[in-house]
């Protein structure tokens, strides 16, 4: 992991503050956030609701804009990175259009970005195979299970070859068993594609199992309380979760979350 290529920063936040103006006055969603995410990292953001983890992910995606500080994606402002198709975004709900087939849903961003018809088709087939939905292109979303729909939405985010995948509690609405399988699949996808992944969750085991770097956050105001570089190997079978190393990291995350709450 000392490979210089994997150590180049992809996302860099320097004293990022973000204040929402609400009817009840200003709310500090992010306070003095400093973070570097390197190429090929799998970074999880974990913390209770209101800690700003989603807001930070949205700021990286230029869906929110920091009030002060600097935030760069591939050395560019987030807005510019978006125009360069730097990232794909996956939300908690799959958000597939019910009136389009799975294949048509996946080619939607490609259509918007102006890819040719042939290019759309080959790319759609490629990412469908990547998430193991090869035979389901002609189905409509309601014909698929929740887990399959979420895999389709991941395929959609991968279709235009973004280097960064931003995922906001993508498996939050799924049951434990499906979640385990998708976590495993996501890791293998990550290993095969070498993407940089930003992953919001509030499950400690999920964060520890997936991540090379765990960012622990706490609320009011939203800030980072701990950044843990995981010593676990990149290749992780599911039963790694029973090893002492895994339990130790989980413990540290839990301590970090508790410390964040001590301020309340």
């Amino acid at each position: 992991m000392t490979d210089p290529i994997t150590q180049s920063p992809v996302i860099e936040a320097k004293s990022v503050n973000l204040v929402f103006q609400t009817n009840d006055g200003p709310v500090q969603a992010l306070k003095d956030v400093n973070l570097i995410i390197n190429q090929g990292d799998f970074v999880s953001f974990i913390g209770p609701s209101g800690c700003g983890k989603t807001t930070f992910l949205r700021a990286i995606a230029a869906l929110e804009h920091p009030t002060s500080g600097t935030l760069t994606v591939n050395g560019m402002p987030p807005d510019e990175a978006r125009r360069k198709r730097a990232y794909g975004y996956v939300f908690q709900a799959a958000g597939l259009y019910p009136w389009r087939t799975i294949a048509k849903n996946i080619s939607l961003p490609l259509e918007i970005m102006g890819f040719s018809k042939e290019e759309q088709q080959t790319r759609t087939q490629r990412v469908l195979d990547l998430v193991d939905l090869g035979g389901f292109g002609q189905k409509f979303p309601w014909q698929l299970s929740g887990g399959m729909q979420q895999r389709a939405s991941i395929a959609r985010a991968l279709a235009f070859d973004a280097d960064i995948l931003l995922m906001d509690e993508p498996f939050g609405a799924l049951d434990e068993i499906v979640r385990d399988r998708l976590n495993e699949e996501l890791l293998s996808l990550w290993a095969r594609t070498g993407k940089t992944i930003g992953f919001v969750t509030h499950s400690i085991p999920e964060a520890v199992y997936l991540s090379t770097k765990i960012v622990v956050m706490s609320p009011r105001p939203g800030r980072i309380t701990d950044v843990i570089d995981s010593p676990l190997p990149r290749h992780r079978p599911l039963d790694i979760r029973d090893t002492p190393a895994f339990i130790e990291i989980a413990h540290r995350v839990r301590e970090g979350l508790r410390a964040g709450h001590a301020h309340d």
Partner: protein
Amino acid sequence: MRTAAPVLAVIGLILVLWYGATVWLNAAWTYDQAARDGTEVTFATLVSDTMAQERPVLPPPHQVAAELWKGLTAYAPTSKKSLVYHGLVTLTSTFWGFVFGTLLGSLMAVVIVRSRVAEMGLMPWAVISQTIPVVAIAPMIVVLSNTLGFGERLGVENQLVSKTIIAAYLSYFPVLVGMVKGLRAPDQMQLDLLKTWGASDLQTFRLLRLPSSMPYLFASLKVGIAASLVGAIVGELPTGAIEGLGARMLIGSQFGSPIVVWSALFAAAILAGGLILILRAAETAINKRMGGRT
């Protein structure tokens, strides 16, 4: 079969009530006649007489059905005695009113969804427009469009123009309300997703907002086409029109012949039912193309 039973039961109940009301409402005239002739009225003569009056207060179903059947089949469709002829006249202005009303309502909805200022500027007027009784505004529209000679300029009858305007006036509103709701149906997540792909406003509209609005559109269209038919009929009342189902109703009531009024009413109801069926077929076809479950 299982659906036929309740439907038939309701129809049966309506017929029973209707026949009962016929005897009750037409009895006065029968008693008057009997008093004048100095004869007694038995129950049997009461029933048979109230069923067959020339100018009943309430015509019984079979009289209406006979008149309707005669109106539909006894004359050539081009004859002014034919209900088919009058129905087609009304249908023409209903159709054009529906087309223009739907266009106007959809267009206004697009503008309103795009801009909050437009919403504040337009929406109150749209609501006010529907609080004015259409019978009050219809004569003014007729006079105005006749004076300005819209029809001559377009090469059609003035009456068609004014009836179309009235029909459109009634039918644009449900389409407007439904489409505003429909175009706003996509949630924030859907809009954010499109934003991350750098979609333009036009692409967002075409790929997300418009398809999302389809169920709302069809619900509105069904209300709109019924409103349009009402508008066309109301438009025929004050115009001194001699054609159209509205004119038939007016003539029937002026010449004291309720059977004519009722047969025209039923012709209008059949027309409305047919129009709704057409819309439903279109909805089913589009729903199928959009991957609907049914």
